[in-house]
């Protein structure tokens, strides 16, 4: 299944924030987690994650710090901030509303499992 590009873009911020809410993480592992969660359905151009992370950093939702990977390579770790958690909660409410609205319609039109 291919998810629409606009929908992916809309999901990106809450998705990244939610993954970081699980704990400090870095780019490659965040993307791996996305793939894992979506079962590979969510196609994402990997590189686009980084400008997004930088934007979240600029907005103060995440805090970034250079660290060292176990292989001894420089690696940028991202940690969610209090502002990020507030933003995540906010986005979560919005998505819940969207889910509830669409879900109500779709459950009536199509029996579960169809």
């Amino acid at each position, binding site marked *: 299944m291919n998810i629409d590009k606009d929908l992916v873009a809309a999901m990106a911020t809450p998705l990244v924030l939610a993954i970081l809410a699980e704990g400090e993480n870095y780019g490659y592992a965040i993307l791996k987690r996305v793939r894992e969660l979506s079962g590979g359905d969510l196609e994402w*151009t*990997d590189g686009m994650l*980084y400008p997004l992370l*930088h934007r979240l950093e*600029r907005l103060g939702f995440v805090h970034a710090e250079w660290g060292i990977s176990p292989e001894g390579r*420089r690696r940028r770790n991202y940690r969610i901030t209090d502002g990020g958690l507030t933003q995540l909660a906010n986005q979560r409410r919005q998505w819940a509303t969207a889910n509830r609205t669409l879900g109500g319609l779709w459950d009536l039109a199509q029996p579960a499992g169809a």
Partner: protein
Amino acid sequence: METTESTDAQIGQWRSAMLRNRAVTESDADELEGHLREQLADLRKAGLSDDEAFLIAVRRLGEVDRLTAEYAREHGDRLWKQLSLPVDVSNPARSLAVSLAVALGFAVLAAVLVQVFRVLATTHVISFERVILNASFLVLPVLGAYFMLQRRMRWRTIVGTAAFVSALVLAVNLFPFEIDGSTFPIAALHVPVLLWFVVGFAYLGGDIRSSGRRMDFLRFSGEWAIYYSLIALGGAVLVGLMSVLLLPFGPDAVSIVFDWVVPSGVAGAVIVAAWLVEAKKSIIENLAPVLTAIFTPLFAAMLVIAAVTYTVAGVWRNFDRELLLGFDALLLVVVALVVYGISARDSAKGSGVMDVIRLLAVLAAILLDALILFSMFSRVGEFGFTANRVAALGLNLVLLANLIGTTWNLSRLVAGRAPAIRLERWQTGYLPVYTGWVLLVILALPPIFGFA
């Protein structure tokens, strides 16, 4: 997992392709490279060959152009190179053509203005001196207008700037200069400098408060000077060959070149050079910092040797005070070496050998200047404050004060006690001092010396 040499070379190529866009910094590239390498390791663990793994990993990361465009969107403020013309990402070739057409339009406008005044001068409607005095008013405000359009400056700011320039035009043209006097050439020399600061105001879209933005203007000025010199060299060759070709038609044909082609070219190139700096800045490396790096050690050596021999041999007593203006030029070069030396550095980094060399050059320049000023004032009875000397001495003191502040900031940088950004702030913060001095020389000096 270790990568092979060929993969490393491929990664290196990909990395430099990313870095070609100035919105991507070294540390961004580090982050992406780390990602790429980890992806490569995973793919090879899954049994792919090096080349296959590289192709897939790079593809997953995304096309370099789209990726750098995304960085540019996020980090629009990061580097002055991203101040560039609003490029339509979906069609860069077209937006480049449009921006060139706009720039050429302004260049033609400048050329036409210059030609109108030249014709008026040759037909004796206005004097040749008046053309000289007003030459920069014909060209630099056009460049300013070009930037006002590019930066979409607010109308109120545009009107304010235009009013300031108009007042300046009126003032210098209403001044009853004695044509053979010295205040006239002094004013004529300072007007373009003041107008260049007006261009800077337009270049920054009126936002002159931020030090980083002012630094952008300094960078622009350096690159512009280099582009203009290159265009002038090419233009000289063109004019020379054109004259040779036209020679069989007689001297009148050659004079057409010098009446029509040369002035138009000199004026138009001002705009074209500015467009080139804006349009090409993400394509080639900035040249001013490179030239500075070459010349800083040479100038430092020259200044240190001069300072030592002047002191030891005592020749500073023989310094001809009429040469003070030439010495001002030397100080100006030293300031420029410092400014363009720091313009390309990462302000987060610490000091290096170049900073020590810079410090030596600045110290030697200050010592030399102090000797010369002392020699002048020790003969204070002979000094005699003429307009020329006041202009030269004032500029000298303005530059000397800058260099003393520079020494303070540079030595703290070298000692690791202050970041490089302090030095940058000092230089950008000094810009209003130059502007004020130039304004003073144009508007106050001539009346004080009775326009003689």
